[in-house]
């Protein structure tokens, strides 16, 4: 009897928590379809805010920036992170403490410290050399820096999960070092690579703080645009962009999970 009360109580807490977790997102989605310019009262269904979205050049630009930033940083991070992941695997019997510290640094550093360090550094380098003008370039550099560890760890764990004799079998079956990469390693870890790419992409799209501090005047991304729009005053238009972003990120994250699971099987 007492046990059943406990289970009921737990289930109650679970549902309340779930409600708590989804209500803010639900409200955003709901009011993005509101015909009235209000975030308090829902009048009737309308796509007006979405229409306004596509007429807004700033938003289109921000969307383009977000996309370019996410895709290009993910590609660079994939290449670099992949190499580290393989290096960590191949030399896992060595003492690589310094490398582990280096790889975990971007993960453990608070966002804000990460962001302002980069900003201060870029500004100073720019003052000295004229290079690294704040803009998409500096943002890509900063994003790659926080994506590398995730790619490296995903690739590393995929390699660790493999039977080590597979590497020897490839050698034994006449694959030269280059052919081993093309015909054995890359195809074998392909699911991990795809998963790492989607994760990097999601991290990049999701990031606000680091982008905010490394951005230039012309390189606002969607989160930065939303931020400044909120600062100017809340409009249902923000609900519409936010809804699109919630959808996109959820999709990418689900894809990442699917590929990761497929790879592990």
């Amino acid at each position, binding site marked *: 009897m007492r046990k059943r009360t406990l*289970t009921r109580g*737990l*289930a109650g*807490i*679970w549902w309340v*928590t*779930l409600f708590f*977790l*989804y*209500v*803010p*997102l639900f*409200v*955003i989605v709901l009011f993005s379809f509101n015909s009235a310019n209000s*975030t*308090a009262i829902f009048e009737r269904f309308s796509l007006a805010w979405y229409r306004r979205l596509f007429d807004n050049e700033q938003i289109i630009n921000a969307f383009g920036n977000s996309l370019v930033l996410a895709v290009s940083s993910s590609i660079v991070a994939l290449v*670099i992170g992949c*190499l*580290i992941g*393989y*290096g960590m695997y*191949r*030399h896992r019997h*060595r003492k690589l403490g310094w*490398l582990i510290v*280096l790889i975990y*640094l*971007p993960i*453990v*550093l*608070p*966002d*804000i*410290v*990460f962001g*302002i*360090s*980069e900003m*201060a*550094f870029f500004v*100073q380098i720019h003052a000295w050399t004229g290079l690294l003008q704040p803009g998409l370039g500096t943002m890509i550099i900063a994003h*790659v*820096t926080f994506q*590398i560890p995730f790619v490296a760890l995903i690739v590393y764990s995929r390699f660790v999960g493999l039977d080590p004799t597979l590497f020897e079998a490839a050698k034994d079956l006449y694959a030269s070092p280059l052919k081993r990469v093309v015909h054995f390693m890359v195809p074998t870890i392909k699911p991990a690579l795809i998963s790492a790419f989607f994760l990097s992409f999601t991290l990049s*799209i*999701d990031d*606000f*703080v680091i982008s905010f*501090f490394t951005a230039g005047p012309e390189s606002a991304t969607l*989160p930065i645009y*939303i*931020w400044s729009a*909120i600062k100017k005053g*809340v409009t249902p238009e923000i*609900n519409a962009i*936010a809804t699109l*972003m*919630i959808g996109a*990120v*959820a999709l990418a994250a689900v894809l990442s999970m699917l590929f990761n699971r497929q790879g592990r099987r």
Partner: protein
Amino acid sequence: MLQSSPMAWRRRAVVSETRHLLFSVAPGAVWIFIFLVLPSAYLMGVAFMTNGPYGLPQMPLSLASFERLAGFGFLGWSPGNLYTLLRSLWQTLVSTALVVIIAYPVAYYITTCREKWRPILLLLVVVPSWTNQVIRAFGWMNLLAPGTPLSDLADALGLIGPHMGLYPSNFAVTLGLVYNFLPFMVLPLYAAFEKLDTAQVEAAQDLYANPIRAFWHAVFPQTLPGLLAGTVLVAIPAFGMYVIPELLGGGKGMMLGNLVANQFAESSNWPLGAAGAILMLIATFIGLFAMRRIGKRLGGGEEVVI
């Protein structure tokens, strides 16, 4: 016929392996070194420089920015910065405690469900955290603004003044922090619950008539490593949070993250901001160090997966 000496062979192998290690690891290591280690080091250096015109750092070296951080300015001592620091600590403490209180039963509930449902339930907890921080804070702004049902309710209960709205306020910041970090606590706690030694729990239920004592002696110690990992995952980023207090807190809800960020944006005092960042770094490393130490003593020795 090969008659190379053992030493020559070994040297050859070591050289090629080392070259391989450098080739694979160097691009990323150099990248992180140049674009994160150097910038962080530079920032730490900035903290010990003097604030120049336009907020940019200049020589000579001084501890002035740390004095400013402690509240000593041109006009004598003022408690503003200290309040901000205390508020950061207080918000971190309260939100972490709330997160533990909510996450504990939630994580346990998931382990009581059927095995095939568990990943889906976990996913449901995690999915909201995949969306942008700014958007999530914005969601709460929508909910807590004046005129919304929640604000009206609080108004009717006399918790807030008429037409005030629940945000901006310290309460809204706490809520935002709890919302933001709940999944970070549920995941490690779930992992701990899943490994729970049920035999021990049943033995404790026989031993202690009181279920609370059974829980305290059999269940709680086993979940301690997960609790600890979760605490670090929540408390460290909460202490340095920028977005949530900026959007939900207003002027009186400022935390250390805002103080630091403002020095690089509006008020422009890089050395002061850098000094604040050093404070944050110290907190981070104390947290990580404490987790390692306590983790080792608990004998878990498990790595925390973020």
